């Protein structure tokens, strides 16, 4: 695929889409278009289980008739369908109310510079090669330990896509990106009980993936160590979140300081700008321009320029997370976060994971959370958990069928340490997080 020619072709379609909106009477419009294709191969117990060829496309348009808004989308990019989609959006705008805060972003906030972010690394992965890699990965897991008894398989995914965004203020840009991943999930058995766990690696560039052997070994290790888990009696104790699930805590932070939650006053962090919401050592910032990172982007879903900036500095909340609409509702300026954040980085501390265990001394090390028990309006937090009981800095035994509970406002302030074991596989990058005290329930 000649990417730049393809981008130009799709830009052309988008341009005609915006023209069509204008012809149908819209005073302003924004449109997005994407095309993606990929291959997913899964192997279970040494045999190919599925080979899936993915090929998706879609376009969406938002039109404004003064301050009346309407939107529509379709997976069909034919000229007739494009006209029909624009017509549907315009028709809806006749019935929505005038909203003084609706509209395109302010022109001077739109991105005008497009630095290379190193997001596109196509992988000439054949089906046979994918089968080999997944098989190696699963084999390593199956042979890792005699307790490994079964498998949900290993799968490999390789996707590439093109994304175009434009609006009637003249913004029109497109880029290509890739995403490759390898995952493995196996079961272990002891007496009557079974456990399952998994591991994965993901990267923009396949050369940055962990080896199949490493993924398989980690999946197997994580599964075997869960065997013979017990519950815990109710207690209050310190809780150490492993790096891969600690990201969820900061995901809740972002939810609570997002424009929508703020203007609806449905957040436990209302009116907290420039107040202390974390201990002073906590520093959280957004890094949209990291080369090759999973969350990198020069502009947000409205074309507004992203910028590296502090969210929390010395424990103080320094910025909300806003799109144009919520910014106008709040009398502020968009922070370039329409569609979310871009590489939220929780500045790592100096302690290794082992040192964090020593710091905790006696408490719960959580490696898995279940359920959605987080209330952003009140901060109330109650979730199912599994992990390990730790005494004197040493893991004692696995635990399961317990809950951990608290209130996020208190939990944020009760963070004692953040590890240097940063998990780079997502859009939120954090090390393990140690919280001074939470409520545990179990049998």
């Amino acid at each position, binding site marked *: 695929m000649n990417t730049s020619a393809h981008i130009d072709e799709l830009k052309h379609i988008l341009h005609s889409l915006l023209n069509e909106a204008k012809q149908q009477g819209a005073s302003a419009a924004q449109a997005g278009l994407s095309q993606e294709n990929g291959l997913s191969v899964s192997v279970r117990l040494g045999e190919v289980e599925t080979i899936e060829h993915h090929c998706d496309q879609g376009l969406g348009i938002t039109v404004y008739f003064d301050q009346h808004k309407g939107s529509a989308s379709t997976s069909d990019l034919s000229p007739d369908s494009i006209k029909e989609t624009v017509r549907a959006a315009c028709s809806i705008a006749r019935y929505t109310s005038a909203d003084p805060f609706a509209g395109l972003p302010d022109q001077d906030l739109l991105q005008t510079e497009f630095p290379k972010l190193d997001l596109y690394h196509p992988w000439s992965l054949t089906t046979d090669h994918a089968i080999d890699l997944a098989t190696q990965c699963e084999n390593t897991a199956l042979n890792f330990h005699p307790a490994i008894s079964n498998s949900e398989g290993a799968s490999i995914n390789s996707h590439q896509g093109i994304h175009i965004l434009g609006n009637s203020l003249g913004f029109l840009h497109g880029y290509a990106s890739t995403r490759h991943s390898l995952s493995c999930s196996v079961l272990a058995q002891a007496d009557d009980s079974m456990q*399952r766990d998994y591991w994965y690696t993901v990267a923009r560039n396949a050369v940055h993936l962990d080896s199949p052997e490493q993924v398989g070994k980690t999946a197997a290790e994580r599964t075997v160590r869960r065997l013979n888990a017990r519950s815990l009696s109710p207690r209050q104790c310190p809780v150490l979140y492993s790096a891969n699930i600690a990201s969820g805590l900061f995901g809740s932070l972002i939810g609570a300081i997002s424009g929508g939650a703020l203007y609806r006053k449905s957040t436990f962090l209302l009116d907290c700008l420039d107040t202390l919401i974390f201990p002073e050592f906590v520093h959280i910032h957004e890094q949209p321009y990291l080369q090759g990172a999973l969350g990198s982007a020069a502009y947000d879903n409205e074309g507004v320029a992203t910028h590296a900036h502090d969210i929390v500095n010395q424990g103080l909340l320094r910025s909300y997370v806003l799109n144009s609409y919520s910014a106008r509702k709040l009398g502020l300026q968009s922070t370039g976060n329409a569609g979310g954040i871009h590489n939220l980085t929780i500045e790592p501390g100096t302690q290794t994971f082992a040192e964090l265990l020593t710091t905790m001394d006696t408490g719960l090390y959580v490696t898995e959370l279940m359920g959605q028990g987080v209330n952003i309006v009140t901060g109330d937090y109650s979730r199912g958990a599994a992990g390990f009981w730790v005494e004197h800095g040493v893991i004692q035994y696995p635990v399961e069928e317990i809950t951990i509970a608290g209130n996020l406002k208190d939990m944020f302030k009760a963070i004692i340490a953040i590890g240097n074991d940063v998990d780079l596989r997502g859009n939120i990058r954090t090390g393990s997080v140690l919280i001074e005290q939470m409520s545990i329930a179990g049998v």
Partner: protein
Amino acid sequence: MELLHLAKNALLASTGITDQDIEKVLSSLLSSPLDTADIYFQSTHSESWVLENGIIKEGHHNIEQGAGIRAVIGEKTGFAYTDRLELPMLMTATQHVKGILKQGQNAQVNLKNHRNAPILYPSVNPLKSLSDQQKVDLLQKIDRETRQLDSRIEEVIVSLLGAHEHILVVDQDGQLTADVRPLVRMNVTVIMLDNGRREQGSMGGGGRSHYHYFIDEERALNYGKEAVRLALVNLEATAAPAGNMTVVLGPGWPGILLHEAIGHGLEGDFNRKGTSAFSGRVNERVASSLCTVVDDGSLQGRRGSLTIDDEGTPTQQTVLIENGILKGYLQDKLNARLMGVAPTGNGRRESYASLPLPRMTNTYMLPGQDDPEEIIASVQHGLYAKNFAGGQVDITSGKFVFSASEAYLIENGKITRPVKGATLIGNGPEVLTRVSMVGNDLALDSGVGTCGKEGQSVPVGVGQPTLKIDGLTVGGTHVA
């Protein structure tokens, strides 16, 4: 035949694909030996409307269409799809799928029309059941009347969703089955402020119907009333207890317990692979003798109902647990064949772009003999959980959670005070063995459930009578 005619019109006539084109694709696919193959055509028109802050803020319309082509041999599946309903694109997808098959002989398949199962819902387009002006007026009426209920209401958010879906399944024998599926859903959320404390309440419902469903019996207005009631309860709620205690679950939506604790673990794929905590346990006791649990996709008009599943199999009532004994699993074609049983009409897919999996439809427990008030009166100290937010299960360890959003303490046989939402956690194969009382008040949920599995979302229903469970862990903050 009527459904087939409608689906063919929507999917084939409008795109120019002919019966001969389908025969060509199928013949090409079947030129290699295989066990199961199908072509799944789908088109979905959907819309959403959102009212917030007293104004109609958002409206969205979406059209999605495409075809998925699948071939299965043994346990191997090849799959490809296209969102362009054109013969060359279907042939390209077929070539991708054949990558998994051995080279074979030429084949010729002829299409046969297939009789449809009984009709469970109207084939009308819900999007056209009200004019856009009427939809907008309905949302504004709900907003107005809900705001009048209490002066402490700060915000009312009302959403209306509708979808009209046509599907056409062609299997390896050339048999055609079709369905036309309406689905509507409405939700009302209120935010209330009292003495500086803010709480939210939310209520919704829907089903395979048209928008008049919300006007009939004043359902929409009642969602508003219920949302306000829930927010008021939350405003009074104090810290939930932490620990293992007797839990009484209310009727209806708390049936999410059955969905998480039992249902997922009984899906055929996990049991064929031996990865479920219920694997190999048919005819064993997994619940108290008071419990009979079924999955039924053939209920009239329910959110989880389907005339046929996404493989063309008519849906049915499947007994999962009978008087406490595990009776069977939920099957799609692939897993049924590999386990040597019949499909149960539970092969479902999110869309043409995903593979079918064994999934639940409407899962519920049959009513028992007990008066719900007597169930509460029998508890010395425990939790009465009436509403839930959602749940999750680890099908291998059997551990499941579900999050109460409305709960009360029971003290000395009486419901005393509301407590904050808390996650409840238990072990699927054990939890129903501790059911000691089953109410005579079976209710199904109001039609809001969505189930996720392997990244695919499908609409589902749940239900149950009032249940007493002697011992479940409640994840509050108040450690006694």
